[in-house]
């Protein structure tokens, strides 16, 4: 579906709305992962509202672009975006992590718009590689996107997939790396250094675009550029801030996997008003 394009100003407003939903969902659930959901919000909002081709009324439309969230713990972000783009009513968001809910603690195919489960890190790049190859076999022109975490690229499976995406020259594939610099046990560079990250992906045969992952104009320009790249996959390495948008969560490792209390949620929502 050719979705109505939003202006960058409208995208900023939409992203703020999605951040509010993330806070409300997590406070209501009492558990979950705010930090990495908020850091990737601008990237995924722009992707769904201005880039992806899809039809929420027909989630299995064969010509849809595919998106997969490999860093599955950021699914509150995915669910909020799916609700905001019409896959399911917003009220459903408040069943997150509850018994019987279609919104599981980590992505599950019972959620409309979710193509594959995730939650065990490192597998998602391979999954979109498979989707990219399926497009090749079927001679279809859809594109595939995947959101990776920075801690996640410490997994060996990522580099097996990175090598293969380069080998198979998957120009219909675009990876988005949410480079917020934090993982559960601390700063990535202290736990297991990632740099030089761009050079690593380049060496594996990728086109690399480095941006500020909170600047809507840079984000949109990166998606546009990725579509023009021939014979190689693209990765957008987006510098982000963990917990972005909520002052007391920004850069705080502790908010990787802890939901805000009701009181914290109220403060956060005031900041995001």
């Amino acid at each position, binding site marked *: 579906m050719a979705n109505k394009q939003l202006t960058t100003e409208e995208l900023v407003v939409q992203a703020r709305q999605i951040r509010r939903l993330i806070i409300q969902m997590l406070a209501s659930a009492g558990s979950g992962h705010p930090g990495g959901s908020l850091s990737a919000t601008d990237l995924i909002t722009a992707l769904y509202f201005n880039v992806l081709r899809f039809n929420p009324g027909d989630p299995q439309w064969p010509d849809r672009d595919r998106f997969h969230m490999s860093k599955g713990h950021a699914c509150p972000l995915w669910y909020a975006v799916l609700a905001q783009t019409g896959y399911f009513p917003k009220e459903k968001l408040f069943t997150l992590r509850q018994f019987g809910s279609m919104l599981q603690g980590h992505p599950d*195919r019972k959620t409309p718009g979710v193509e594959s489960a995730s939650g065990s890190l490192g597998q998602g790049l391979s999954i979109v590689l498979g989707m990219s190859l399926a497009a090749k076999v079927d001679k279809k022109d859809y594109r595939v996107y995947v959101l990776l975490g920075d801690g996640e690229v410490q997994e060996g499976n990522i580099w097996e997939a990175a090598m293969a995406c380069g080998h198979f020259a998957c120009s219909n594939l675009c990876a988005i790396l949410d480079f917020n610099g934090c993982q559960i046990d601390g700063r990535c560079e202290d736990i297991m250094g990632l740099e030089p990250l761009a050079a690593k992906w380049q060496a594996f045969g990728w086109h690399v675009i480095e941006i500020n992952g909170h600047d809507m104009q840079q984000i949109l320009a990166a998606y546009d550029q990725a579509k023009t790249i021939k014979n190689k996959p693209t990765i957008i390495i987006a510098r982000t801030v963990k917990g972005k948008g909520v002052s007391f969560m920004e850069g705080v490792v502790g908010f990787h996997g802890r939901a805000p209390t009701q009181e914290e949620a109220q403060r956060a929502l005031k900041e995001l008003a």
Partner: protein
Amino acid sequence: MAEQLYQRDVYGATLVKLGLLDKNIVVLDADLSSSTRTNLFAKQFPDRFFNFGVAEQNMMAAAAGLASCGKTVFLSTFAVFAAGRAWDQVRVSISYNNFNIKIVATHAGITVGPDGASHQALEDIALMRVLANMNIIVPCDGPQTEDAIMAAADKPGPFYIRLGRSKVPTIENKGEFKFGQAQLLTEGNDVAIVACGIMVTEALQAAKNLAAKGIKARLINMHTIRPLDNAIIFKAAKETKLIIVCEEHNIIGGLASSIDEVVAENFPVKVIRVGVRNRFGQSGEPEELLKEYNLSSLDIEKAVLANISQNKK
């Protein structure tokens, strides 16, 4: 002398047949296509074959991406790598998603031979059997390999199909292959022998030897391990009171465990396991190894004689 076939030759040829019938089928391999015989498919359908190199984790999860786009995926590597190396990818990306992916693992069991312990999968059935949604077939010979592959192509969902490396004799008069329904190869009420894979040949020989001693063994070819044919087991338990289970696998977690579990819950009788006991394999020729690891027809016969009640002897 019975016809002898490589199961993987039959597999490769069956893939080509399927490829002609259904253009939705894609095949993946991880640098072993000449051994697994997926190269037969690759030659005929190069646009639907992908070699992932020595990267099984990537192959398993990429299979999930292909399946999510509606492809029927067959993928192959050696059993040690298929079941062990990429188990979490099989768990989360294949089994949990319940995708239409057929893992056809070759070179299973001790009869891999000279390559030794690292390459002899004795734990693969156990590893695959604990995964919800997973279907498991261990065909006993060449023709049954084709039946198993066709059945898996027919039925949506994840499959693990276990094949060997060596040639195996074709077993006559097995009757029709039905997925999930075991085959009765000999009739008898003195003892039930349940076997899968190459152990069916050994068990058949044991049943013949026992018959010469006046012991009538009921031999069951349990080609489908999940879902298990409970009815044939309960009937055997009831009517023979003694079950001998034979598998080219660790005695923990495989066919014997499957049978132990349902017998213990429903009709407790003695179940004796003929399999590999708390050991890794080693280099050697298949026949030498079957003997060393107590997997020969003589070992099955001994297990029966040691456990059958005196009045039946």
